[in-house]
């Protein structure tokens, strides 16, 4: 039982309870049988309504009984409609019939209210309210909104009530501004209210959403004033996640990297298009599906596409797609909806440089005025509460957003502090952010070379990479990757499907899982890894038919060279450094 403390009971108490339970079970079973029998016989009469009411008052979660009540009510609504339409029935009787129905609906609201009072988390009881409100002739929305407020005063996080509030606000045609004001009120009463801050962010987004594009544009001055508001909250309690989450949203909403975020409504853009002899590779700013892809290319063929993902061997949406064919596709390199659509026959690689620059922070975003103040606030809180992870984390997120190049060293130091001492429970989370920071740093150093046509090599060595999330945007540009000396544990998460050469030496890898993304490999180095058995690598090698050289020096696998040779007859095995 949730929230019920276990307490010792005496034999006597136990016996009394058992007796009570036996009585209540018998009553329930009797009523249930009667309800079901009446329903099956189609007798949706007043007795059925009172039987279901008696049970629901004690247990509001028996959704079937609510369904029965709604059927009974709908029958009465229909009957009333017939009466109202019938010219032979007098006005008095019509009025009476209408009033009777409204009384029934009002009674239903009261029943639901009683149910919610004893079980504020009953999905069915809340649903019934919204259902009734949509059937009343003149629903009292003011009263309903007041009820929501009352329920939120008792539990300001009750998401059933918040969801109901959203429905009522819509039915009552409340404006987003009014709902924003409502969030103000709740936040002023108690700033530690994640639900209210969330509600606020939704209202703000709706107010500032471009009706045509769906994108949210909130100007700097509004972000600044919202930051002032949320600042009070994090100064009051710097451990409270509500304020920090809202701050982070504000931070990200204004930075121009919106297309990388959850909920982004920014149009999906082509990042690169390239021909690789046996396939055309398309990379997008967000995951896309085949029907979307077809709007960018000169084929209607849906069968030759392959998608790649780090979490699934057979994704149906991805940022990285290959079209398998010996001749290149023609590709739309403008927006497919543009007036003059621009095509490329891919004689040379198409690269969306501007987007890649944003993805890898090649150019820092200009800082709006409020950023310095936010940094100072974080700094002050770090001094006041040196053991609190939140201000340091927020400061680091701000730096990653606006000063990823200038503050690279500080970002690394902060993430290490968070990982090693301030919040070691989530050590791997900070290490993954550190990994991404270092990956971006390294890609920036190679950026011009990668975008040029001379080389297809990406080298990120000894950079503490725990993940290669983010590298997939380069899937059309990189054929040769060297990730020696990192902290990678799994090879199948690499989404670079045009790799012919891969070095993952000196990573803590113990086995190789099959990876559709690495099927073109001709060279692989796993030297210095912990791979020890032939069985742990063979499933992978069954997916690499073109492999001709395998370097595995300084692995326990060296002792199994002969066994491996028997399994991989066409591959040149290199068990020792040359």
């Amino acid at each position: 039982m949730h929230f019920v403390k276990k307490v010792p009971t005496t034999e006597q108490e136990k016996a009394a309870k058992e007796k009570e339970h036996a009585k209540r079970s018998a009553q329930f079973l009797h009523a249930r049988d009667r309800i079901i029998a009446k329903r099956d016989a189609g007798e949706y009469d007043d007795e059925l309504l009172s039987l279901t009411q008696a049970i629901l008052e004690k247990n509001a979660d028996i959704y079937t009984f609510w369904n029965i009540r709604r059927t009974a009510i709908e029958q009465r609504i229909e009957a009333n409609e017939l009466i109202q339409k019938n010219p032979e029935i007098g006005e008095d009787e019509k009025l009476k019939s209408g009033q009777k129905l409204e009384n029934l609906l009002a009674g239903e609201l009261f029943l639901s209210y009683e149910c919610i009072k004893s079980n504020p988390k009953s999905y069915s009881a809340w649903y019934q309210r919204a259902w009734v409100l949509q059937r009343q002739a003149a629903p009292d929305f003011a009263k309903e909104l007041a009820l929501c407020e009352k329920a939120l005063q008792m539990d300001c996080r009750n998401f059933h009530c918040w969801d109901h509030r959203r429905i009522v606000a819509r039915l009552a045609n409340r404006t987003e501004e009014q709902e924003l004001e409502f969030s103000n009120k709740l936040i002023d009463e108690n700033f530690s209210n994640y639900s209210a801050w969330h509600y606020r962010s939704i209202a703000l987004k709706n107010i500032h959403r471009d009706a045509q594009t769906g994108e949210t544009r909130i100007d700097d001055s509004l972000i600044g004033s919202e930051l002032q508001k949320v600042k009070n909250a994090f100064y009051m309690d710097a451990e409270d996640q509500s304020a920090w989450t809202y701050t982070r949203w504000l931070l990200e909403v204004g930075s121009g990297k919106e297309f990388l975020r959850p909920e982004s409504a920014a149009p999906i853009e082509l990042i690169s298009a390239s021909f690789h002899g046996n396939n055309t590779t398309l990379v997008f700013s967000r995951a896309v599906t085949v029907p979307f892809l077809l709007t960018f290319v000169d084929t209607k063929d849906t069968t030759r596409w392959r998608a790649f993902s780090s979490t699934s061997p057979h994704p149906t949406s991805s940022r990285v797609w290959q079209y398998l064919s010996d001749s290149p596709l023609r590709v739309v390199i403008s927006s497919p909806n543009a007036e003059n659509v621009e095509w490329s026959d891919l004689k040379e690689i198409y690269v969306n440089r501007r987007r890649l620059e944003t993805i890898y922070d090649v150019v820092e975003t200009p800082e709006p005025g409020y950023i310095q103040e936010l940094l100072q606030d974080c700094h002050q809180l770090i001094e006041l509460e040196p053991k609190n992870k939140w201000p340091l984390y927020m400061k680091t997120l701000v730096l990653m957003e606006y000063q990823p190049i200038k503050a690279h060293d500080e970002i690394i130091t902060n993430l290490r502090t968070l990982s090693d001492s301030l919040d070691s429970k989530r050590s791997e989370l900070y290490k993954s952010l550190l990994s991404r920071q270092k990956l971006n740093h390294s890609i920036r150093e190679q950026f011009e070379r990668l975008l040029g046509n001379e080389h297809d090599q990406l080298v990120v060595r000894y950079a503490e990479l725990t993940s290669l999330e983010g590298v997939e945007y380069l899937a059309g540009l990189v054929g040769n990757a060297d990730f020696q000396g990192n902290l990678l544990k799994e090879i199948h998460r690499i989404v670079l499907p045009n790799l012919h050469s891969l070095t993952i030496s000196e990573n803590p890898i113990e086995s190789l899982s099959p990876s559709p993304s690495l099927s073109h490999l001709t060279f692989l180095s796993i030297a210095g890894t912990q791979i020890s058995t032939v069985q742990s690598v063979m499933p992978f090698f069954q997916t690499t038919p073109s492999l001709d050289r395998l370097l595995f020096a300084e692995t326990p696998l060296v002792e199994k060279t002969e066994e491996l040779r028997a399994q991989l007859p066409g591959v040149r095995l290199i068990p020792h450094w040359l």
Partner: protein
Amino acid sequence: MSFAGLLDFARKDVDLPQSSPKELLKGLHSNFIQQYEKDKGGYHYIMAEHLRVSGIYWCVNAMDLTKELHRMSADEIVDYVLSCRNKDGGYGPAPGHDSHLLHTLCAVQTLIIFDSLQKADAESICEYVKGLQQDDGSFCGDLSGEVDTRFTLCSFATCHLLGRLSALNIDSAVRFLMRCYNTDGGFGTRPGSESHSGQIYCCIGALAIAGRLDDIDRDRTAEWLAFRQCDSGGLNGRPEKLPDVCYSWWVLASLSILGRLDFIDQTSMKKFIYACQDDETGGFADRPGDCTTLS
């Protein structure tokens, strides 16, 4: 709520008592479940009728995971589940109750565990599920019309397990899920709703079944989930809430789907889960010291 409970509530975490169990009491739990199955005349059993098929699935699954399935009365359970089928092709929680997507999924899962799926009519089940998909891609849980992202998972999982995922309009269903995707990386019940661990499990579970996990910023979602771990090691369902053992499942399963299990501290989480066990009766409570529960 007791005074001790109020204190926990105020500081949004709990202490693990010294005397708490320190390991998994597997035997006690299977006894607890077996006892529950036997006690069909019991008050709690009778009063939980509206949850039964779902409850059966969770019990049977726990017994299967602990390799104690042979202690359950397979034939009786399968017959009971089959008796919950309604004319519309779906399953209710108990005979006489209306069909619901949740119980339909749990019926299919239970039948699979007992290798009895051939006793169900896959086609009419999928027709039932399909009939609950709305124009905007969402699903109602039953004939009531209540829409919730939980029901998207139920429908995807049911049809997937029956090998008929293509019966559904996956594209529009995913579009609806993405409208429930929040800036903090989580998902809520409906568009605009606050993020919630259970809801996240349902949404990313559905996306994973559809091969659409790349539609979201996985690391942002995983980060939100990682911050569900409290100092006690237990996981909560939303920010600033008390830990509750049930979220060990919703959060952990979600992190596992995202390939980010290492984002939380597994040692302290295990300690919390062990401490939630009742070392007299078996079973788990929501948090240390509370009463055990099956749901």
